[in-house]
């Protein structure tokens, strides 16, 4: 399930200049697939401005998202892996940015459930942080499901 979502939305990048940029880049594939529109990207960023980096769900991994105020057209998820960590507010370093787009609060729970299995397992998380290619990421996620 999760790997199906990520099939076309995994990106690797050496470095980004700011956490805002990391969200813009991570969201790009979802924009291209028309899962979301620009307003959702702005919502995610202003959310972090307003409430701080609560989207960092485990140290090193951020899951930017926001309430759907019309900016989410279809459920989706993307993954951006950075070689050099970028600093989120409160000096939190992030190497993996996973943008979550959810049309409402219930339709995407299977996706969340898969994600939980991946992130709750420290070993899998570590493997993920060391993954170098898209296929590697997909394989790791598949193994966790």
């Amino acid at each position: 399930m999760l790997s199906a979502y990520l099939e076309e939305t995994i990106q690797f990048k050496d470095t980004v200049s700011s956490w805002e940029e990391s969200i813009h880049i991570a969201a790009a594939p979802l924009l291209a697939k028309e899962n979301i529109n620009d307003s959702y990207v702005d919502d995610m960023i202003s959310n972090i401005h307003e409430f701080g980096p609560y989207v960092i769900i485990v140290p090193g991994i951020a899951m930017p998202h926001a309430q759907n105020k019309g900016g989410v057209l279809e459920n989706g998820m993307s993954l951006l892996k950075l070689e050099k960590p970028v600093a989120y507010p409160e000096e939190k370093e992030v190497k993996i940015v996973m943008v979550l787009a959810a049309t409402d609060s219930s339709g995407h729970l299977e996706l969340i459930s898969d994600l939980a299995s991946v992130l709750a397992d420290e070993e899998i998380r570590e493997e993920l942080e060391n993954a170098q290619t898209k296929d590697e990421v997909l394989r790791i996620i598949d193994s966790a499901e």
Partner: protein
Amino acid sequence: MSTPLAQAETSAPKSSARAKVQAFGGFLTNMVLPNIGAFIAWGIVTALFIPTGWIPNEYMAELVGPTIDYLLPLLLAYTGGRMVGGQRGAVMGSIGAMGLIIGADIPMFLGAMIIGPLGGLLIKKFDSLIEHKIPAGFEMIINNFSIGILGFFLMLLSYTVIGPVIEAANGGVTVAIEALVATGFLPLLSLINEPAKVLFLNNVIDQGIYYPLGLQESVNAGKSIYFTVASNPGPGLGLLLAYTFFGNKIARRTAPGAIVIHFFGGIHELYFPYVLMKPLTILGVIAGGMSGIATFQLFDAGLVAGPSPGSIFAYLALTPRGSFIGIIAGVLVATIVSFIVTSIILKLDRRSDQDDDALNESIEKSKSMKAEGKQAFASEEAAPAKEVSKISFACDAGAGSSALGATTFRKKLSKQNIDGIEVKHYRIEDVPTDSDIIVVHKNLVDRTEMSFKDHEIIAIDNYIGDPKLEDLLDRLKKTNEAS
């Protein structure tokens, strides 16, 4: 060492009964307080534009009726439904309230405060019944139709039941008032007046009984005390003053505004929500009303006609020469007595809150003592002060971080074979009030505390694998083993 333990043990059930009463009081308060602004808006419109208002205006006055009939009860029902059953409960409660509103010819405040939470409860129970049984893809249609169909029945029920209920209440009030008037001891009338006013049955007593009696007397004597028995603004003023000084934080801030509209504008409805918040304070306005009537009697005071609205200005304008001292004294005495009695009630209530905190603390303490001395008391059964059955993860959107946190935690619980604990995710504002523990990111704690200051809130840095969540898991593991 066994003595304090035994004490804590025996006092625990007592405290839980009291805690329940308090939780109920807090529930009423939380249902009413967020909507006080709407009451004030309505009060201003009414004080200004009704025919006897400051700047009568027929066109503007059209706002008065629908606002009090529809907006205010719907808000109460919505809030009450939401507190029990989240957003879906709010919708359900409002549907039910609509039946009441249309079925009754008086504003349905109390009814809305019952039907709102009832609607919330109904949909919550239904949802938990069908949970995990909905085939994927059908959630939306089932969610909408479950509210639609249950709401249809709730609306029919409240619509058909409420008419006869109000008729019976009106009949009962009329009979009781007539009997009390017959005794000649008028202060007793307050026993009926004040509760009837808060329930919006005052029109039937004012226009049905007191005004006819007053007119008869007024024709002969030029004034009548019957015009004053239910319209004295003193008791309400005293109550609002007591809230101004001794109420909880938010009540303290809103009560002064309500005073202006109530006392000078004569819109008594402004104090009703404060009574509904803490029903015991009805004793304050009853005592105030009684002493007011007694004072009017003592001075043989009366008004020349029914004051409408019952503001201090209408009172003075309708006071015949020679009655001024009596009328002013009656209002003043009613205010002071109501203020004193209500203040005592509010203060006692507060103190018992603190008592409870102290009690909980001591239970907590003895519990930890017990945990330490577990070996020594191995035979004793560990009785936690409160069983945890519902944990709510919350975040801003209720879709991402909280869902992830809840799912992960649920998985951990089932790995430990702990069952019977419901773990779900919500938007902060939709977290059900019966949650035992609310887990939220530390940056969102302030916002959570605004709505849930009486709940245990766990503030975390990360929704997954936070040390505080590990602690929680340990704690649940222990209670699970103990039970």
